[in-house]
């Protein structure tokens, strides 16, 4: 039963909570997104910031996924000091609209893999595509889908995401600072990853295409 409201949200017909709202409107979302652009940029590409807080690429991500993250920021299930003031400006309709807007933008390329050495990229590719079962680290793609470009509305595309953002999220899951994943599916893997593995997989994913070419 629970997937019905999710489906409706994905179609933009209702909110996650099942209450009726006007259809999500990407054009209206574009206007609302004005408050997001300082960080996420006009084209939704975000920014990789070496040594600082990277802002994720939102362009081309699944609308229901973006919407769920915004709800989670609002409820406190996910926390981030930079996001908090902005998400609190959004009402339910605006969350739907802004999610639809970013989902409609063409995906941009990730940054942060420049200068990575071959051994690091090779290890990153192994973790992303095959995992390392000797430490029970399952591959990224076993949930994030073919080429890690996302699967359904729960598992976001991570290929072509900025290395700095992926790294920060894996570190947050590992430390228990982020835990809004269903059933600890991400947390349980992140906790088995070394800092080197986190770095390797982040730079490799950043170097990959965000959508099928």
């Amino acid at each position, binding site marked *: *039963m*629970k*997937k019905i409201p999710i489906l409706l949200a994905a179609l933009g017909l209702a909110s996650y909570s099942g209450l009726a709202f006007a259809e999500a409107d990407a054009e209206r979302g574009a206007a609302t997104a004005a408050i997001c652009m300082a960080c996420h940029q006009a084209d939704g590409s975000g920014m990789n910031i070496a040594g600082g807080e990277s802002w994720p690429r939102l362009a081309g991500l699944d609308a229901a996924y973006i919407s769920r993250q915004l709800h989670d920021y609002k409820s406190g299930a996910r926390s981030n000091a930079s996001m908090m003031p902005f998400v609190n400006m959004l009402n339910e309709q605006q969350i739907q609209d802004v999610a639809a807007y970013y989902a409609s933008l063409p995906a941009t390329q990730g940054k942060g893999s420049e200068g990575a050495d071959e051994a690091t990229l090779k290890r990153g590719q192994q973790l992303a595509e*095959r*995992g390392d*079962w*000797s*430490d*029970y680290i*399952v591959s990224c793609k*076993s*949930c994030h*889908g*073919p080429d890690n*470009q*996302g*699967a*359904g509305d*729960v*598992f976001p595309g991570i290929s072509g995401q900025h290395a700095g953002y992926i790294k920060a999220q894996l570190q947050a899951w590992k430390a228990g600072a982020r835990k809004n994943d*269903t*059933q*600890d*599916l991400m947390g*349980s*893997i992140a906790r088995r990853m070394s800092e080197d593995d986190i770095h390797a997989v982040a730079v490799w994913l950043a170097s990959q295409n965000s959508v099928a070419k």
Partner: protein
Amino acid sequence: MIRTLSYAALSGTLLFSVNATASDATTQQYIDTLTELGYPAPKDDELVHIPPTMEDLENAKLHPELKRVIRKGYDLFTNTQQLRGENVFNNMNCSSCHLGEGRMPFSAPVWPAAVTLPNFRGKNDHVNNLEERIAGCFTYSMNGKPPEYGSDNMLAMSAYHQWLAKGVAMYPEQPIYGRGFPAPDRPEELSYARGEAAFEEKCSVCHGSDGEGLRVGDQTVFPATWGDMSNNWGAGIVRIFTAAGFIKNNMPLGQPNSLSDQESWDIAYYMSNQERPQDPRYTGDVKETLKNTEARFHKHSMYGQARETDGHVLGDHSNTGEKSFLKPDTIRPRTFE
């Protein structure tokens, strides 16, 4: 434990180790990782084998052409959907059930087949070799039609199995550590309602509330747990104890041994109460088919029984799923006469 370790030192990747002490340490570390994940430690007389990886293959002293064929076998094993419509008629890959590329203990690692076959198999009542065993998986778990015996694809998959068994003696006398999907003790009572609730809570985010799984394009991300795109009624995992063993040891993905024994069995019982394509051993009559297969197989599943929630008799249909035939020609008795 010393005996176990000394055996392990003779097997698999450990052959590459320069001395026995290093091998023992490697094996101990392997066992420590597994016990930390909640798996039992090997018993003193059990054979512990660490199957070689694809990286080990690159460094192995094998003919380059053999390496190429083993890589092809690996590719078929982990992306069996490339045979869709030819040999595979559902959403399964070999690696959907044999996790960790067929290498993980407690996830029916596939290398034991390479060292214990040919052997008598109760399921079809005759001696099977490795190819026929693989053919069984295609017939039932993939709801399909096996690649021809001796074909390139069959040889490649066999080669991958044998590579994983590298260094293990043929017909080992010791029991094999982590073989199959060892089931937890069966609880006194199994509950459909509890299984349904647990499936919804713990499994449906990936496998869907209707067990449909998830596909992206022509690839399977999460396999269907029942229905036309899942294994048929003849697959080993329709047996409740096998499914309970798979679930307990492997699910949710990344969290082995996190569900209770009761939850694992309840979910398995719930799954065995759902429909799926017909058993290729079907005679046209579910009661007769049940009678033929009950002692060896279906006494462990819900096949042919009335579902408690609505009285539906499970398997009482002629639906073969996506394929147009019931039984592939390769499935036939052998008499060696």
